[in-house]
């Protein structure tokens, strides 16, 4: 049964190529079936392969063909299946299928649906390759493929130049991360002689001691790549703009799968990171700072999708925090639960936008509780899981991370405190969203209700968001066993109560109205802070001033090819010489006679001299 492994990425690839080749000639219905069906088939195959794998227990390695072979550089197209890969594949194909099903109705009235499903299937294929690759070069292939597909999908409605700009921004910013990761790959290959993950881990353990400079540099470069793709602090500005794409795209790419690629990379190469403690600390710090920064920004956004985008950045910050403190299993566990509830939230937001004819501003919506019940309940459950209210899936995974962060000697408690503040803010902005959109007086009337193909994925995801926390993921074989931790009940109590406090605060501010914050908000500090946080801590402005403007200016100056001036000066000098000589040709006989006489004099003088 394990032999079916290569089939999983093959299904989306075939359907994507089919959709591309037919160039929109296929009837809409058939396109939807092919698009969603292929991912469904992949999900079923993953299930089968998963079952077979659970019985056998050891990792399964399958080589298709050697990609290229020059000297000792011989990466090959090969898949590696272990617990981590299985978890990631099931998330991608499972959540992916639900999102495909959702988008069959969401994109129904769009003119180029086949192009949409072609890109979406290609994305699922690239993500599967990324996850199943057994060597870093094939992983890099999936890595860049995912980046390219996200560029295509974000820029799907290309008529509007802003979408094009957002897509370009996404591709270039992630590309910076990819370049860093590429240099990391070069370093790893030069030092360890191979790019296959498992042999590389062994070679690293033998060659390097803990804390050598080379592993630290390599891990920091890999972190650079992960930061680019998972939209963490330095390279996160592209994710909020990437909301320009269709909402199911945001659900699939910018919530469930692509942004978690960075987390997967670090998890997959955790042996290297174990050899570089400073790099792990860096991962934790990046994660923590990003989550806090994103949480504050999400507090005062008014576009429903941008709130969810910043919340994604914040939640991935948590995963980075988990990886930084060595809680690998907890990080992946949070990744899985986050995929469930964030996909749910995005799809619900998609449904809201779809029914309110593309309205994005939450303050224009209100009181949708009664008109869109399904959407309301899915939003409620999603936000509960996001805020990690007790007994939701989010609670189990976030709690594990915070507890293990607390365990870390040295900076542990600080990280834990930061995490808690993040959890509080998460609770506040998620319930702010729910109360503003679904409670209060109705400002807009939805013109249509979500059909069955929208409601079904929403309900399935609701179920997953709730019970998602109870499954034990088969990660024990992959990661070193995390220490048994049972901190004092006080710490546990605090981390349980924080989300509830957040919920109360949100209720008091946005629904009950008892807690007046207008005074605080309208004070001039408040205004400045509000604008500052709204623009994402002015990161966009900073990057524009730091990189974009100088690059454009440089390109503008060099546009006329300054190197040409060197050759043009040579040309001008020749023309000057020609002009001087041509003036001597006056055409008058006397002038020629005189010049001849002049010559005669010289000759005779020479003769005189010579004799």
């Amino acid at each position, binding site marked *: 049964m394990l032999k079916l492994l290569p089939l999983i990425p093959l299904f989306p690839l075939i359907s994507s190529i089919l959709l591309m080749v037919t160039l929109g000639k296929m009837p809409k219905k058939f396109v939807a079936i092919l698009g969603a069906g292929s991912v469904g088939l992949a999900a079923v195959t993953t299930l089968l392969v998963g079952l077979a794998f659970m019985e056998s227990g050891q990792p399964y390695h399958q080589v298709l063909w050697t990609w290229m072979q020059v000297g000792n550089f011989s990466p090959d197209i090969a898949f590696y299946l272990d617990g981590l890969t299985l978890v990631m594949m099931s998330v991608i194909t499972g959540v992916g299928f639900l999102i495909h099903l959702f988008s069959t109705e969401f994109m129904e009235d769009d003119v180029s649906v086949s192009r949409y499903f072609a890109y979406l299937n290609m994305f699922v294929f690239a993500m599967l390759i990324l996850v199943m690759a057994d060597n870093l070069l094939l992983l890099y292939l999936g890595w860049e493929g995912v980046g390219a597909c996200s560029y295509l999908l974000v*820029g799907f409605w290309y008529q509007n130049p802003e979408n094009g700009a957002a897509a370009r921004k996404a591709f270039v910013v992630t590309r910076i991360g990819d370049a860093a990761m590429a*240099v990391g790959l070069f370093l790893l290959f030069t030092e360890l002689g191979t790019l296959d993950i498992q042999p590389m881990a062994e070679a690293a353990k033998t060659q390097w001691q803990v804390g050598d400079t080379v592993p630290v540099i390599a891990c920091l470069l890999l972190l650079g790549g992960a930061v680019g793709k998972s939209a963490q602090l330095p390279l996160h500005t592209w994710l909020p703009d990437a909301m320009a794409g269709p909402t199911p795209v945001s659900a699939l790419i910018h919530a469930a799968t692509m942004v978690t690629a960075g987390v997967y990379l670090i998890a997959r190469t955790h042996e290297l990171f174990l050899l570089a403690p400073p790099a792990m600390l860096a991962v934790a710090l990046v994660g923590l700072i990003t989550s806090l920064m994103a949480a504050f920004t999400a507090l005062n956004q008014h576009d429903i999708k941008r709130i969810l985008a910043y919340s994604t950045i914040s939640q991935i910050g948590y995963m980075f925090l988990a990886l930084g403190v060595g809680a690998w299993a907890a990080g992946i566990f949070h990744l899985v639960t986050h995929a469930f509830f964030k996909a749910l939230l995005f799809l619900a937001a998609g449904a809201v936008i779809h029914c309110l004819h593309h309205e994005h501003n939450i303050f224009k919506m209100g009181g949708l509780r009664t008109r869109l019940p399904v959407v309301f309940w899915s939003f409620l459950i999603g936000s509960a899981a996001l805020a990690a209210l007790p007994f939701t899936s989010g609670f189990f995974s976030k709690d594990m991370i915070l507890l293990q962060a607390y365990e870390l000697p040295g900076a542990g408690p600080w990280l834990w405190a930061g995490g808690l503040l993040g959890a509080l803010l998460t609770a506040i902005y998620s319930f702010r969203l729910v109360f503003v959109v679904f409670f209060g007086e109705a400002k807009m009337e939805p013109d249509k209700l979500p059909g069955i193909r929208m409601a079904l994925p929403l309900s399935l995801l609701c179920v997953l968001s709730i019970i998602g926390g109870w499954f034990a993921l088969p990660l024990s074989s992959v990661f070193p066993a995390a220490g048994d931790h049972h901190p004092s009940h006080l710490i546990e109590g605090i981390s349980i109560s924080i989300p509830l406090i957040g919920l109360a605060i949100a209720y008091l501010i946005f629904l009950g109205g008892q807690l007046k914050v207008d005074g605080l908000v309208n004070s001039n500090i408040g205004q400045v802070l509000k604008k500052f946080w709204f623009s994402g801590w002015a990161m966009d402005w900073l990057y524009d001033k730091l990189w974009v403007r100088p690059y454009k200016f440089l390109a503008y100056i060099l546009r006329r090819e300054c190197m040409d001036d060197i050759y043009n000066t040579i040309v001008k000098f020749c023309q000057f010489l020609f002009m001087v000589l041509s003036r001597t040709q006056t055409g008058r006989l006397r002038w020629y006679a005189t010049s001849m006489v002049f010559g005669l004099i010289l000759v005779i003088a020479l003769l005189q001299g010579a004799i």
Partner: protein
Amino acid sequence: MILVNLILILLVGGVIAWLAERQHPGLPRWIALIVILFDLAYLVAAADLSWTKINVVPNPSEAATWLIHYKAEWIPRFGISFELAMDGLSLLMVILTLVLGAISVSASWTDIKQRTGFFEANLLWTLAGVLGVFLALDLFLFFLFWEVMLVPMYLIIAIWGHEGRGYASMKFFIFTQVSGLLMLFAILALVVLNQHSTGEYTFSYFDLLGHGVTGDMAYLLMLGFFIAFLVKLPGFPVHTWLPDAHTQAPTAGSVILAGILLKTGAYGLIRFVVPLFPHEAMAFSPIALALGAVGIIYGAILAFGQDDFKRLVAYSSVSHMGFVLLGVFAWNALALQGAVMQMVAHGLSTAALFMIAGSLQERLHTRDMSKMGGLWQNMPRMGAMAMFFMLASVGLPGLGNFVAEFMVLVGLFKVAPWMATISALGLIVAAVYSLIMMQRAFQGKPKEGLQLPDYGVREMLTMAVMIIGLVWLGLYPQPVLDTAQPVLDSLTTLVGSGESSVVEASVVEMSTAEVADNLNSVQIVGVVK
């Protein structure tokens, strides 16, 4: 004799195509296509190439070990012989030339209206010249083909070019001619000095490999060769002819110019510059690497700043060929393979982009991107093709360019880590200009009432050939790697650097000022007596 026939078929084909114009203006195109395909078939059939033969590692200095070797006396007094030989590297280049030749003929099917016969004749003669360059192993014959390749290309640009063709073709001709002159000095000086030490004149590559010239003179000779090939492979300071030549050349002209003529420069570097002057080349390599890296970044920045679609693609090939320069002068097995792969993959991807540029110009009668916009709406198939080849030129893994660039950078990282890191920036700036090209030309608000014919069957077939080529190179490049492998092994062992490269992993300590005076020290190259 096979090699001689290869070139002869093209030359004769050119004449026939020229004469065929009288019967019917469309006929020369068919004749050109048939001649090129026949030449390709002849190569495959006549030269019984089996993997066993290709895999034997040739010793560069003995003719017998090469795949095919042909030698005939020409001017015995000076040791000049009509010597052609083919090994793995030149086999690859010959196949690339013929494939791109066929593609360029199909690219300009409807493009050329007047004097089609003469156009196809020039096309075939350029191809013949290029084949000669790839096969010639007698330096005198090499220089002859170097010029033969140049003249018809000049005519193609000068006669069928666009509005600024006079300036562009003249600039192209002068740049290559002057640098060719430098190379001629170097060849003659080499032969004369060789005659001093060995006592008899010989222009043959095999005998010149062990020439006794050392010291500053060898450095100058190496520079002479290097500059000639740097101009042809548009290296950083001397690349300014390429954008003009490309924007003004007709579609077929720029496909051939970008696809094949740039490769002659790179081929020259691998075949002549480093093997003939190993130690000087290694001493010179920090500068060359610096030029390569600067070329990548400079080409990309300028590409970003262009308004003209073809000029942007031209600068992109300046940027891509920077990688080849890096690959050659890193001089280990991996980097060299990367350079060869880049030559092949870049040929395909840039040829496609130029075809798209040509068809855009044919439909919109302009290359100015500010006048384009939202063309995907009118021409979805061309938009899809442009997107695919744009992604290829950005270096999307799974396509040929990525494999090449990755290998070059990994090979370079072993030799000069900092240089590799700087060149990795090239990946970012490459993405920047390619995306801006797609945005300004194909995306954005479509112009109303614009009825444009989309791609027909012929164009889609040509594009399909190139897509298959690129995907095949991207996913299973092993056949190409194996053909070039034995040659590159023999070259790396010949230069004696092997894995532990002579060039110690030093940051580029030579400042650009030193680069400048090296370049103008070349002006005083004279035949030393």
